[in-house]
């Protein structure tokens, strides 16, 4: 009886401990995002983060000069999407994940394939003096004159 019981107990303990470890690792993130943007239906949807400006036309987040922001970008669409900004010519950005570098005259950033999730962390410039920093998708949020349409995310200055 004991000789049957022991291997079974061992098997159960190993299996439960192994699966717990595996789940813990899968959930592990090296960063804690302040903002989570889900990209789908030709729009950026902010599913985490304190939205700034209730009447804002686009998802927006407020930060002070020199402050750090950690974004998680999830492409839940069936097409690749970009996340670019002139800001990335001024500041460096830490990233986690799989993406493609986008380098243009007007804006730099990343292109994210369908199903991929990328973490991004960067500081706002120290001389951030009230201008808006816009991030958009070159594929679906192209500049039309001065008007941005579609997929746009805005970082606004924090007052007070």
């Amino acid at each position: 009886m004991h000789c049957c019981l022991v291997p079974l107990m061992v098997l159960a303990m190993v299996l439960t401990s192994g699966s717990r470890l595996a789940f813990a690792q899968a959930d592990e993130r090296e960063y804690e995002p302040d903002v989570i943007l889900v990209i789908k239906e030709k729009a950026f949807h902010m599913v985490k983060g304190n939205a700034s400006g209730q009447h804002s036309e686009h998802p927006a987040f407020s930060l002070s000069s020199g402050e750090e922001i950690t974004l998680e970008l999830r492409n839940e669409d069936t097409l690749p999407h970009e996340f670019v900004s002139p800001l990335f010519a001024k500041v460096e950005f830490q990233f986690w994940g799989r993406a493609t570098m986008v380098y243009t005259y007007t804006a730099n950033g990343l292109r994210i394939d369908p199903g991929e999730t990328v973490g991004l962390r960067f500081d706002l410039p120290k001389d951030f003096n009230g201008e808006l920093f816009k991030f958009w998708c070159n594929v679906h949020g192209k500049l039309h004159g001065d008007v941005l349409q579609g997929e746009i995310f805005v970082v606004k200055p924090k007052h007070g």
Partner: protein
Amino acid sequence: MKPTDTLLSALLYARVMAVMAGAIVFVPHDRILAHDGASDNHQGAHSSAKPATADVEIVVQEGGHPVLKGPQTHGQVLTLVAGEPIVLALRNEDHGPREFISPLFTKTEIHFLGRATGIFRKDAAGFRLSPGDTLTLQFTAPFSGFRRMYDLIWCGHDGKPGADLQELLIIMTEEKQPHAASETHGR
């Protein structure tokens, strides 16, 4: 054998097995697959990501000088063929952060996998890697219109890329020679 002894031995055996199972689960993939590129410690960011096998590696070892590894390398020169894909692994085995900056990275689409800091400037772009990190790049060598084009990769640190000439690597991109056509003409 007493029932308590049996239970104790079972628990001991289970602990040993659990530790072994844990060790298998926790060994980072980049330790097992030494040439598979990016470390897999950031699964929350891309659980589906699987690094491609690198054709060439740039390893910055202790002391700071970069070393090229792979069949397309010769000393400090990496040879690419325009229009052909390449998988390049950047590895920082130094004690401090290291940068890999190049104008080449602005001339073609760079697909990357891993963890690093991205740096975009007017005429060059690149990555800063923390000690122990690996970043896998995948791109197509760009056409220049010249038979050969040379680019540098500056493997610097502390925002001083290429301060030492030994921190520079040369990338030579060659246009494919139409051997088959010339052989046909020769016959």
